[in-house]
């Protein structure tokens, strides 16, 4: 029987190395999938997975993600994988990250001519607040694209839409988000 999230976090807190095995057994496949979607290479995805365990080991304690261990790990795996993709400059993946970055840039391209220093903490809070006001479907589509970095074609298949529909949903959401951020004086 596999350990509960609480058990695993306890093992991390006790500095018990079995925590890594228990995490790998329970969430390894999902962490690998997140990394693979971003880096597009099995070996690199596995390296990112291992780095994720190491980072979790370093962060627990002080963190104690008993109730959100998978989300905690996915955040780490995502950050490590994006950094890896960017630093490795893997041509194809790098281009993909660039594509996503330029889409995201639309959300913070203020119509004002004055460049404003953006507070990252306020910005992410405002984005989350905006997303929570959206219907669940749109919210999940946005997260699948910009958190899990999924291709629009894959999202379209999951949701039963044409790819062009997903692209226009995301386009409208990016514009609405930019307007929201301007209204909230974040950008």
């Amino acid at each position: 029987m596999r350990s509960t999230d609480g058990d695993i976090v306890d093992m991390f807190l006790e500095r018990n190395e079995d925590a890594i095995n228990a995490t790998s057994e329970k969430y390894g496949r999902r962490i690998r999938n997140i990394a693979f979607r971003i880096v597009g290479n099995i070996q690199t995805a596995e390296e990112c997975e291992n780095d994720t365990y190491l980072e979790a080991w370093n962060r627990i304690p002080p963190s104690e993600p008993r109730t959100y261990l998978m989300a905690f790990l996915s955040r780490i795996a995502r950050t490590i994988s994006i950094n890896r993709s960017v630093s490795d400059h893997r041509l194809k993946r790098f281009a993909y990250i660039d594509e996503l970055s330029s889409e995201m840039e639309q959300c913070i391209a203020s119509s004002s001519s004055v460049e404003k220093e953006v507070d990252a903490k306020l910005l992410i809070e405002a984005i989350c607040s905006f997303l929570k006001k959206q219907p669940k479907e749109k919210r999940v589509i946005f997260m699948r694209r910009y958190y899990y970095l999924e291709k629009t074609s894959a999202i379209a298949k999951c949701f039963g839409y044409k790819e062009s529909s997903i692209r226009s949903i995301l386009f409208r959401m990016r514009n609405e988000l930019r307007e929201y951020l301007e209204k909230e004086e974040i950008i």
Partner: protein
Amino acid sequence: MKGKDLLKLMSEADVSLIEESENAPQVEKKKISKMAWLLPLAGVVAIVLLIGVGVLFQNGKKQTSMSSEEKRHEDLGYGIYLDTIAGVEFHSADAEDKIRYGLLSDGSDIILSQSDIGEYIGTVSDDRGQELVGKKAYHYAKYPKYNSIIIVELEDSYALFCAYGYSVDVPLGDSLKDAFTKYGLPEKGVKIEVYDHNEKLIRTITERSDIEQIVEILVSCNNIGYTEPNRRLVQAWNETYGNDYVYLDEKSGTIKYRDIIIDQTIQESISKSSFGGVETKSEGERLPVEDMADELWHKDSLELIIEVSEGYRIRLNYCPLARKISAFNGAFDLTEEKMKKLDALLK
């Protein structure tokens, strides 16, 4: 702040948003508003269908449409295990599975019917949510021999689960033999798909003798870890470009890059010598070392997917420059002779 920073910042999104979106729910198409005039007719059709379903399932069996229980299970993304198949974790069908098993019709999930339930395959023995332990699982009738897709009987409906294959760890120094034996290779090998480094399918091998020969080569390779293959990649860089901009960190066994941008003169000569005349960057643009190394190392690499009769798949990466096959948790050593044979069979 740039778009790339914002993309990274999304890692700090609320846990609730991350959890909600981790497993994309199968949302129905919502096109009711444009079709409102059809609603009364749809009601009539629904009644007719309900009567039909009642007639079809009058023996007390359940309909296999998506229930709230299944949706909840899918949202949670639980992995499950069966008592009859050790070491294989089943997960809710994702987009790739749905395409593979033809579970989508015109972009929407197909609704399974009673006739889709095949032979009994086993009982759920482990489930992270503990909700499915003890439930019975069946083959998907469309693929009666596949263990890689199963239907689990719930209280009032059924749920689909899929598996990639066995969880296998190959210790350092060991060959792929045990792992492949677990999959029943070469006897159970059905096909090998070969993809180039751009993920383009270049060949599907179905000839039994070819599959056997490829497997024979692969099982003779031992896991040597990543340090030695990395050393070979660095050596290939040195031999090609005559500098140490890329080097091996002996302590960690990983490859490091010097923070250098190659100037245009060097880039041009590289484009001609190693990219076969294909320009990958616009004129005047400078090229980081990592890009050059990646192109050099991976331009000839291949992705192999071996499928066995139970439907399980093994993914392998073949990198000729590193003389290695990456699979499971290891890097497996290839000799020049083995690579020659492998190339002849794959290309």
